[in-house]
């Protein structure tokens, strides 16, 4: 009899202990704060060229950083504005009907606004976006044909509206001010083009398609003319190589786009792939393709970088924030390149007009 009540008592104690523990766990879950979530690391396979989006990186909505222009009250953008007027760039973005909402939309919400003129090139017209219809099919084998038609369209409609003509993908991020700084030393009447220079197959090298490339007005004229006179072939499955070959045939120079201390400005990948030593394996094609000695680590990339490629929508907005908004207050950057000569003269004149200091930038 006694042992039975003793047993009952023990089970009672056990029960109460377990009940207590379960309940405390429940409460700590209910009252606890959320832990850190590690952000996704984007593992872009360097060999994949625009692998089909599996929906993971699909961003709904858009972010407008320019909504908080009041954070920029003490910012002086006179030089950037001056360059905007002096170095006119028309950007055209290679995209397609399925990518307008997924990718091109985010380009439009970020860097595209800083082009003097921007056009979105698709196989079919979209009046709402708006996108130009090139009347081609879609697909990787159509890229060169789309490129030719796009440049033709630009030449026929906008030749006098710009000095330089930039091609980018809908996953390229471009910093227009840095492109203008680079191009300001050159004359758009010269036959020259710039981008990330690769060395194989073409003697003077050719420019990586994804990193974006920019043609001078003269280069554009010659390129369009080359197809009318059959100097260059229309068919190829490798857009950037075919364009590079054509450029060589028509005597358009492949320019050196590196900054004044030899750092690359156009990048075929996102910053992480270039900045982290060992990210791109030694056996990777990239190491043999680069025209100039390739560098990994901090020396990979100019402070005044012009472009990055394989940029997904989240990274577009991150770059937008990092380049145009977040900054280290009062910091004296190590790399302080000179202003282009012609701009320097104008800036001296501007100094006598202090009212320009608090002016809001026309394009931000």
């Amino acid at each position: 009899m006694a042992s039975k009540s003793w047993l009952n008592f023990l089970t009672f104690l056990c029960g109460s202990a377990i009940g207590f523990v379960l309940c405390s766990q429940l409460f700590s879950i209910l009252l606890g704060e959320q832990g850190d979530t590690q952000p996704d690391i984007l593992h872009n396979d360097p060999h994949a060229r625009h692998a089909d989006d599996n929906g993971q990186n699909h961003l709904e909505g858009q972010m407008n950083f320019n909504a908080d222009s009041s954070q920029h009250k003490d910012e002086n953008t006179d030089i950037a504005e001056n360059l905007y007027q002096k170095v006119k760039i028309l950007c055209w973005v290679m995209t397609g009907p399925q990518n307008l909402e997924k990718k091109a939309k985010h380009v439009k919400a970020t860097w595209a606004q800083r082009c003097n003129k921007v056009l979105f090139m698709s196989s079919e017209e979209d009046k709402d976006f708006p996108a130009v219809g090139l009347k081609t099919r879609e697909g990787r084998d159509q890229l060169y044909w789309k490129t030719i038609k796009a440049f033709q369209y630009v030449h026929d409609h906008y030749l006098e509206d710009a000095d330089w003509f930039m091609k980018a993908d809908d996953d390229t991020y471009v910093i227009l001010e840095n492109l203008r700084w680079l191009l300001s030393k050159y004359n758009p009447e010269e036959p020259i083009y710039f981008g990330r220079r690769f060395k194989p197959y073409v003697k003077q090298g050719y420019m990586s398609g994804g990193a974006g490339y920019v043609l001078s007005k003269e280069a554009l004229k010659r390129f369009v003319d080359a197809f009318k006179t059959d100097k260059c072939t229309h068919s190829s499955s490798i857009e950037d190589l075919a364009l590079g070959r054509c450029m060589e045939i028509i005597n358009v120079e492949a320019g050196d786009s590196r900054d004044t201390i030899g750092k690359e400005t156009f990048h075929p990948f996102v910053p992480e792939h270039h900045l982290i030593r060992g990210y791109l394996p030694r056996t990777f094609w990239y190491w043999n393709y680069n025209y100039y000695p390739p560098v990994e680590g901090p020396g990979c990339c100019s402070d005044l970088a012009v472009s990055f490629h394989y940029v997904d929508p989240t990274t577009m907005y991150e770059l937008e924030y990092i380049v145009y908004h977040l900054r280290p207050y009062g910091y004296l950057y190590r790399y302080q390149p000179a202003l282009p000569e012609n701009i320097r003269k104008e800036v001296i004149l501007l100094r006598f007009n202090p009212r320009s200091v608090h002016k809001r930038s026309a394009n931000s």
Partner: protein
Amino acid sequence: MLSESSSFLKGMMLGSIFCALITMLGHIRIGHGDRRHQHKHHHLQAPNKEDILKISEDERMELSKSFRVYCIILVKPKDVSLWAAVRETWTKHCDKAEFFSSENVKVFESVNMETDDMWLMMRKAYKYAFDKYRDQYNWFFLARPTMFAIMENLKYFLLKKDPSQPFYLGHTIKSGDLEYVSVEGGIVLSIESMKRLNSLLGIPEKCPEQGGMIWKISEDKQLAVCLKYAGVFAENAEDSEGKDVFNTKSVGLFIKEAMSNHPNLVVEGCCSDMAVTFNGLTPNQMHVMMYGVYRLRAFGHIFHDALVFLPPNGSDND
């Protein structure tokens, strides 16, 4: 058999009720105090831009040098890759940075805390820092190894704040009656707060080593309780637009969340231009931030700042 299972069940019920009661009591007791004190959420604002323009060139240099920030980073051996990244990146911009480790690690120098309890580590680190450096630094910043911090923006934020006042700043969270600075956003203490904290560390009734009645309380809450006894209260740090400058998340996460919460909308930019911290970064992301913050920029955008900070010697990534 039946009587045993019934007594077991009765026991469980009693245990749960007992536990629930204790939790409720804990919250209610604090709740009553709340109504009496009318506790307000403090907002600290970054200084006014117009005031700053009145400062002269020499004064700017002097002013910039007057902020001496000592950085405390609490690490454990498992954090070694983050530790490496933090060492090579933003901590180079602290006036002094020291790593406080739960145990000695061969690869890197650290101060050995000889415990892996976070609250004990924090206490010991603050005591060590205060005892050794009280005369050399006027602000003390505590960070996690998953954080990226911009010291220049911290100093800008501290402009016009007198370190002989008890400041306790960061991203604050309210838990019942207690408002505390989350360790996930970084914790800033002025020298005065450090003084007061250190005077209480030796008093177990005010600042116990094992806080919390039944289960563990996080180290940042324990710190807040301790500081509260010393009359030091948490204040949320915001810029002139009301945006947090101490962030508990990474930029990428902010963007993803903002977009998923508001599809089909154009949302306002996620974060302050003068952000001091971001958290939840991987080692690679630290290097990318280093490049993005201290190097990558758009040509032709110039700022007239009240402070001047030079790049550190012997560094190639900033």
